[in-house]
């Protein structure tokens, strides 16, 4: 990349905005995913009794089953949320930066 291009992009206010927004968003989502997964694993390690509780009095299904399915769904939903925001906000900002510097 040409040095003048670097300084042009660097000084572009939208670039600062993109950098700040995307970085924060990525790390927040990473943290949320880790919290969900390790929260689940810690329940499995230390609070098996919680996961063993039936979802209703007359049911054999335990709370652990819908909870496990929710962890799987959350992985998909979080990637979906990221894609949605990236396709919108981040791509818009990127397009504007590119239009201005090129």
């Amino acid at each position, binding site marked *: 990349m040409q040095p003048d291009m670097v300084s042009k992009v660097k000084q572009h206010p939208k670039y600062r905005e993109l950098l700040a927004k995307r970085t924060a968003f990525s790390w927040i989502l990473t943290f949320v995913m880790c919290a969900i997964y390790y929260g689940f694993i810690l329940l499995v390690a230390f609070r098996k009794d919680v996961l063993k509780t039936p979802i209703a009095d007359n049911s054999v*299904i335990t709370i652990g089953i819908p909870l496990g399915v929710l962890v799987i769904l959350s992985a998909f939903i979080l990637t979906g949320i990221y894609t949605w925001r990236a396709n919108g906000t981040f791509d818009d900002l990127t397009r504007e930066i590119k239009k201005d510097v090129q």
Partner: protein
Amino acid sequence: MRNITLFGLISALLLSVSTVFGAGGDLGQVQKQGVNLSAILMFLVFVGGTLGITYWAAKRTKTAKDFYTAGGGITGFQNGLAIAGDFMSAASFLGFSAMVYNKGYDGLIFSISGLVGWPIVMFLMAEQLRNLGKYTFADVVTYRLEPTPIRSMAACGSLVTVLLYLIAQMVGAGQLIQLLFGLEYYIAVILVGVLMILYVTFGGMLATTWVQITKAVLLLSGATFMAFMVMYKYGFSFEALFTQATTVHKDKLAILAPGGLVSDPISTISMGLGWMFGTAGLPHILMRFFTVSDAKEARKSVLYATGFIGYFYLLIFVIGFGAIVMVSTNPEYLADAAKGTLKGGGNMPAVHLAHAVGGDIFLGFISAVAFATILAVVSGLTLAGATSVSHDLYANVFRRGRANEADEMKVSKYATFALGILAIILGIQFEKQNVGFMVFLAFNVAASANFPVLLLSVYWSKLTTRGAFLGGFVGLISAVVLMIIGPTIWEETLGFPKGSAPIQYKYPTIFSMTLGFIAIWFFSITDKSARAQVDKDAFEAQNIRCQTGIGAEGAVSH
């Protein structure tokens, strides 16, 4: 089911066949099956079809870019299917469903651990890789660091990961095929090796991707049909299915809650880290991000892949429970009704269930799909290994970036051939060994050596060549050494007395990955060389390309 170790379980899931039998057969011994005609016919149809794909792809594979990345023209949806295909190996199809069949809920815990790495790849890696790289993840790492040492280090990490994973897959493949088709072990291994050499040498990434997509569609359809038939039988009521399962399973209600699988928190977290971040460091998976046109398609790839993998794991849960109610109760599938052992060994619940819901023809279909799965996965691994040899070692280290493209292509084809032969020889050598540890070792190396260097090269402006080089090797060596002196290899494989292993953790990722990160950090901040200044100064430009895609390979022209 006594004494089944955590390690036995994780390897069961990744490489069910070989591990379980190698570990002394808690789940039953491998028994060669009679020749299965409908399976062989369907398999021949699949091989014919994939060779057709290879022929088609060969005509379109002319340049190095075609060979390594299918010309960069794979769509996000197609790539998502291919990535999901890389993850839905035969071992995870048969191994996961066998775990649910034996242990119920614990099988679900492993499915979850296998999935959660994907969102992390999405948030931190996918677009960045696409914007910075060309053919391998070493391209990303050497974007601003000194190419020769860093590429050598990244190629070491890649090749170690690929070889360990490949050997494990080959041994699993030989045993699985022996089981499903009644072929001799060595014939099965040679067959897999020859086919994968053909796909990769002639069709490159385009053939490898389409073989993987074909198989992913077949496997998802087959698994969907099985789960549908199970639910159909129970009027689409989970309550009815689970009630019946808890009645017939020997562990009764316990199968609907976590068992003894996860107890020691250090091991558990360490295992989770290995899974999560190992995924983000597997060269054959990372390479797939270079096959799409831009960051947006890379992002879509992960979204689709996460969806397909998650859906597949949910199906596996239903299939495992379906097998409890429809296979374990049917004497036709049992080798020993008193002990409840299955014909063909402990990894057969899904295969028997295929017969129970769809008869001989569907059994043949599922067996052929299982074989197809192995072929597709080993092809991807071989391509990643060959690319590391030709693009990283030959073109950029040995020839210092001055190799012409025709020579580089030639080397990649020789490397494919050599890796294929090596995989066949090692696959036969390791037949009787417990190679299950190799899968976790591969993930552990990926998480401890490849991932930290890759992550910090993208995000940390103060990373220097010295830090990445030394830190990468610290991660690699500690990942291997801590596994060797851990209980699995030290006691089970090397045969030292129980309890004598210098460290008592089966999953050292929490230590080796941390060591890798600390070493990179330490050797970077203490680096006062002139090169270090060059590395740091180049971060700004790298970050601009990484964030915006300006100047990215095949994305924008300016």
